[in-house]
């Protein structure tokens, strides 16, 4: 995946810079703290309950928290093809799938990684801020009355308004300005810019 390069001052060849860009993106992945905390809490609680039940069974006072005798009697009678058992098994399997997915899928990118040309400097900025910066650049083009940029996925859409009639030339200038700024900031990933200009009627 070729990406926009940071500029003439970075000495690295393009391929190495791209690889480091991917490294940078990895740093900004979600850390999955909340699912991990929930899973850890469940494990802790389960371990606690199991230990307490087993210890109290050893000392002959079964069923402190979970009524072990009732559960054991139920388990002696219920078969594997019982509806409740199969539903529970299915639920466990689904939870297992979800955990695997949560653990492997990178998650929504909270920050866009910007390339800095220096591999030990990782820069991240929220997508909204990148859009705001590009919008500000577009708004500074001569003839533009106001401008706004939206970033969805890898697509930047710039909406500009002007008092002029000739929107085609202005559109070109805005497109170039935004693309230049994008090249300067060099976010990781190939972004495309679409410019829409609304002129005077």
């Amino acid at each position, binding site marked *: 995946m070729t990406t926009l390069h940071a500029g003439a001052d970075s000495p690295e060849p393009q391929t190495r810079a791209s690889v480091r860009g991917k490294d940078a993106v990895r740093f900004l992945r979600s850390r999955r703290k909340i699912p991990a905390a929930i899973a850890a809490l469940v494990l802790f609680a389960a*371990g606690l309950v199991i230990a307490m039940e087993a210890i109290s069974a050893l000392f002959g006072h079964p069923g402190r928290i979970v009524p072990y005798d009732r559960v054991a009697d139920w388990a002696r009678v219920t078969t594997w*093809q*019982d509806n409740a058992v199969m539903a529970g098994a299915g639920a466990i*399997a689904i939870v297992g*799938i979800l*955990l695997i997915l949560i653990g492997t899928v990178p998650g929504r990118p909270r920050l866009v990684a910007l390339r800095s040309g220096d591999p030990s400097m990782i820069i991240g900025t929220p997508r909204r*801020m990148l859009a705001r910066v590009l919008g*500000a650049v577009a708004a500074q083009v001569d003839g533009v009355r*106001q401008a706004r940029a939206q970033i969805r996925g890898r697509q930047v859409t710039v909406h500009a308004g002007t008092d002029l009639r000739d929107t085609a030339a202005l559109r070109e200038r805005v497109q170039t300005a935004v693309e230049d700024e994008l090249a300067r900031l060099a976010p990781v990933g190939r972004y495309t810019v679409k410019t829409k200009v609304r002129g005077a009627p």
Partner: protein
Amino acid sequence: MNRSRAFGRGIARGNRTGLVVLGLILLPAGATALARGLGLFGATAARTPLLPNPVSTFAGASSWFWPAVAVGGVVLGVIGLSWLLAQFRVDRLNRMRLESGPSGVTEITGRQAGETLAGQVSAYRGVRRARASLRGKPDAPALDLRVTSQDPAHPDALITRLHDEALPDLRTALGLERLPALIRLRFGPGGRTREVH
């Protein structure tokens, strides 16, 4: 990788590994139980009870079953608790040795270095606020810098300035040749002025 651990990525890798391992235990367990109930292991297997008599009497008769279960429960609880506590560990580097000169070893706290840098960056044009903290270990430190810019922002100029001035200054102050840095740029709440032409 030193860098990964310094920026708190270690917890990312640990968490994700733990979640996947847990999922890899639950998925086959649930799937085999479901398959057994659906009769994929034979019709008789599907009709046996969850807790067959031999197992139940064995558990009651043997002297090591319940203690083993208790130990298993404790181990599980300890794993869960340590995993939970790991989420709250703050990865702040507090002490860093500078040179051991003739007057002894100079120590600087990570906090001081961070605050100095944050003060320097806060004074830059276009920056509303900056917060910096050193993370990692004394022999493998890393910088975590959060910059809140004013609106409108010129991030490329700011990035250049950080790269050319602020970071080298910090590296000189700490006597380091390299310092991996994670820089997060954002806008602050409130005070948004939009340019009007």
